[in-house]
């Protein structure tokens, strides 16, 4: 059983109202399943806004202020200011906007920061070694553990909300050093890493994630000079095909200066070699389209950094997107402001693309927009868009290939 402090017991007993009580009860139940002995203070929370409004009301209506620093995840495209410009059906926009406004009121009251991004590290939700976080969104979780050296579990959306409300989470799983050892070692073999695209890194991560399942991974062979963006694509694909929340990149991850450190001086359960064939296998799996005619190009999942937007602007500068093809470049609002100031947004718009903010493109329902074939440089988008309720066919390749496709309308450029 999870032991509670006096203050936590007051929450559990309802002295701070039913919202806090319910959140604490859920966290106790959650901790009991995974053998937690106590709660631990949460320094950073990140919550998701897609929740059913009646459930969020029950959780938040009677909560005055969140006890943890909390940012809010990206939205459905239909609830953003870009919806009409993206061609989302007006009846969908109208319906989704109503419930969205109710959610916004609940989050405002709780003091959740409406950053509306899947990349909380872009908007001041900062992590460092040892920080305890409870964040919805698997890319943020694996990046938080693996690049920033912070400690957080694969918390579900509602677990993260409970932590935001109470300021605590059960101390368990990846909070404990003994559970952070790598179990699977992946050695990169025969790859010219300097010339791999972000999509190649996404494919590598997707392959490793499928083998790893929920296990911690250590990767050998990545130079510490590799860009944040490539690491982002590599890591964020792992909890899509699998459920990896910690991947020690030897020489990059703060707690893994060596493979021995990543393994906690123990032995791995399994060692695999990953190279060209594995990348090719994932391209085969994620490229589901039977045509090379593209309707939509989706870039920015996880949300693009300013460097990535700059690259796209350079690729599109002075060129024109083919009529009938939509190009969406997705980022956080604060990054958009900077990109606008630097002229990148104007270049992309002049070419016929659209820089959009606040949204998640990866689970875009088919009901919202008429798209048959979608091209992307993100393994997440390639995996999730054809999933639940969608039926879109995918083309997956590098950013350069996606931009070339946008200009010709045909995959392959």
């Amino acid at each position, binding site marked *: 059983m999870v032991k509670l402090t006096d203050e936590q017991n007051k929450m559990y007993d309802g002295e701070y109202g039913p919202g806090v009580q319910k959140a604490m009860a*859920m966290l106790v*139940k*959650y901790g009991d*399943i*995974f053998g937690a002995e106590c709660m631990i203070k949460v320094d950073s929370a990140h919550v*998701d806004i*897609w*929740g*059913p409004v009646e*459930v969020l009301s029950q959780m938040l209506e009677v909560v005055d202020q969140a006890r943890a620093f909390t940012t809010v995840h990206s939205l459905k495209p239909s609830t953003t200011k870009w919806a009409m410009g993206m061609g989302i059906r007006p009846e969908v926009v109208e319906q989704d906007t109503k419930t969205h406004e109710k959610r916004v009121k609940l989050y405002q009251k709780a003091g959740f920061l409406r950053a509306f991004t899947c990349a909380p590290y872009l908007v001041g939700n900062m992590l460092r070694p040892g920080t305890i976080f409870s964040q*919805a*969104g*698997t890319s943020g*979780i694996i990046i938080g553990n693996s690049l920033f050296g912070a400690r957080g*579990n*694969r*918390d*579900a*959306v*509602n*677990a*993260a909300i409970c932590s935001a409300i109470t300021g605590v989470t059960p101390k368990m*799983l990846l909070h404990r050093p003994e559970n952070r050892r790598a179990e699977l070692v992946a050695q990169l073999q025969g790859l010219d890493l300097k010339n791999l695209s972000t999509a190649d890194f996404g494919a590598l991560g997707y392959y490793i994630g499928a083998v790893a*399942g*929920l296990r911690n991974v250590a990767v050998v062979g990545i130079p510490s000079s590799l860009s944040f963006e490539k690491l982002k694509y590599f890591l964020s694909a792992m*909890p*899509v*095909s*699998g*459920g990896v929340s910690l991947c020690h990149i030897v020489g990059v991850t703060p707690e893994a200066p060596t493979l021995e450190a990543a393994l906690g001086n123990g032995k791995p359960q399994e060692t695999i070699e990953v190279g060209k064939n594995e990348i090719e296998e994932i391209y085969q799996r994620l490229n589901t389209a039977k045509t090379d005619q593209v309707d939509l190009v989706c870039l920015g999942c996880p949300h693009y950094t300013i460097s990535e937007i700059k690259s796209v602007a350079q690729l599109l500068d002075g060129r024109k997107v083919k009529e009938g093809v939509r190009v969406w470049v997705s980022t956080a609002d604060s990054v958009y402001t900077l990109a606008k100031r630097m002229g990148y947004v104007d270049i992309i718009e002049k070419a016929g693309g659209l820089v959009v903010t606040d949204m998640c493109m990866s*689970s875009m329902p088919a009901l919202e927009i008429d798209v048959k074939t979608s091209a992307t440089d993100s393994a997440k988008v390639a*995996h*999730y868009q054809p*999933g*639940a*309720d969608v039926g879109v066919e995918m083309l997956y390749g590098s950013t350069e290939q996606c931009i070339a496709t946008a200009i010709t309308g045909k995959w392959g450029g």
Partner: protein
Amino acid sequence: MILKGKTVNEGKAEGEAIVSKLPFSFVGDLEVASGKVIVKGHDLEGQSLKGKIFVFPTGKGSTIGPWFAYQAKVLGNLPTGMICTEVEPVIAMVAIMNEIPMVHKLDKNPVEVIKTGDYIKMDAGAEVVEVVKNKRNGVSP
């Protein structure tokens, strides 16, 4: 056959088993509107989880699972009980939030000893699962 396990979420449930060997996500693997598994090449492709006891190894993928499962619940398309080899945090919260009776860590691996079509009676609070073999599935291993 009687199996003993650990509680994920209390409650009693019974029904026909549907067994997958693959880690599952309620985001992407399940069509909320029908309760069917829609992924091409999935070992349950085209089959419905609705009203059944869903037996699978563990979870994977998106942390938004509990919300998608809730939408399926509103439409009456969720399994009535769940059994995992070993649960992970997202599937645990799917069960807790949606009040699905669930056990894991059984004394035998459920995805090996339970077959689709077997009849299951489970009491998750008491940590007991009774498996009545479907004759078509033969004798239990």
